[in-house]
């Protein structure tokens, strides 16, 4: 999963819903080591742009191109390169954290790695409780573990600090600080702490 040089190119992306224009003419290039923020007022389309970059939603016009080692990647394969999290990404309530993580890992799940992340995010002692008994902060921590677990080349985080207390925030920033040299990180956020973590970004305010 590592050691491939990934680049993402966004070219004049535009998104409309029916007649309403959300944003247009969004272009940028990202390579390994870039940490990129997407910010803007509520409703400006931060989550939508992130989902377009992830290949989950289609742009009205414009294109997104992923390149791995200089060869273009097909859209169906994008999700092999990134870890994505956001408020719409919900692990199964009826499963425990450990079961959810095993479900989303490849066959050879590394238990040590999984338990390591659970400990880092202070969820280890809750790992056998069904997620429906978690607080919203704990659910958010679990979402972050899912995104980080398979060590993807790209991290796409939609409002990663929502519902997190200060300790959760510190854990996240510490981990992101360690890994951002080797990855592309894209954060859709309004938090200044997240924006300060990043090397560049855009503001969707029109």
């Amino acid at each position: 999963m590592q050691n491939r040089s990934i680049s993402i190119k966004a070219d004049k992306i535009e998104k409309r819903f029916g007649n309403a224009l959300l944003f247009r003419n969004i272009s940028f290039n990202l390579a390994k080591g870039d940490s990129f923020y997407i910010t803007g007022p509520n409703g400006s389309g931060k989550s939508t742009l992130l989902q377009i970059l992830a290949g989950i939603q289609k742009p009205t016009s414009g294109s997104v191109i992923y390149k791995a080692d200089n060869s273009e990647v097909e859209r169906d394969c994008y999700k092999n390169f990134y870890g994505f999290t956001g408020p719409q990404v919900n692990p199964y309530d009826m499963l425990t954290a450990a079961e959810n993580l095993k479900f989303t890992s490849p066959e050879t799940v590394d238990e040590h790695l999984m338990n390591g992340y659970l400990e880092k995010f202070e969820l280890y002692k809750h790992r056998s409780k069904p997620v429906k008994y978690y607080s919203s902060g704990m659910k958010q921590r679990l979402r972050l573990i899912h995104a980080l677990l398979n060590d993807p080349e790209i991290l796409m985080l939609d409002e990663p600090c929502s519902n997190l207390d200060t300790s959760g925030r510190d854990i996240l920033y510490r981990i992101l600080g360690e890994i951002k040299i080797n990855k592309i990180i894209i954060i859709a956020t309004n938090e200044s702490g997240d924006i300060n973590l990043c090397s560049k970004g855009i503001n969707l305010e029109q």
Partner: protein
Amino acid sequence: MNSRILKNIKKDFLIEFRNRSAVNISFAFAGITTLSVSLVAGGTPFPPVVHAIIFWIILFFSAMSGLAHIFIREEEEKNSLFLSLYYTPEEIYISKLIFNVVLFLSISVIVTFLYLFFLQVLPSYKFLFFLTVVSGSIAIASVTTILGAMVSKAGSGSSLFTVISFPVLLPVLWTAISLTSVSIDGSGVQEYRNIIFLLAFSGVIVSVSYLSFKFIWTEF
């Protein structure tokens, strides 16, 4: 891919086992309907054709009450994006299909036993009857899986599901009713080729659904 499909199936069974209400309601519906029919009939002797028709109508409506659940749950609990981030549409389709086939075969077993017992019907061609129930149930489960996926995206619930399933399930119902009637009655030729018809129908529907599932499930 097989082990991933297996993982997905295990996950579905685990979730449905832990929160048993939906599956329980499906079984309860099937049981209550069969019992209601037998109580209301009050021992009136029906000709075999009428038995066949009532039997398959009960199975049809049991399918309508329960087989879209596996997709509707993903939408209602907002797990569908989470699922599609880690599994391809084809893997998701096969695992939901297998779940529905297993669920509906179980429902058919219950309905069959209750129906034969309470209405005191004994099929003359037992093997043909058994094959009819199995192949008919597989056909119904195949059709309702893809249609259930569509209905889950529409958010309208089970009435829409019944409306769109009925035309597509008509060939299955007709064939199954005719086969069941022959097997209860004991007259007429045992037309095993109708069983092949049902299995062929399932095969075609599953193939087309496999190829077109991604158009329903993802935006691309």
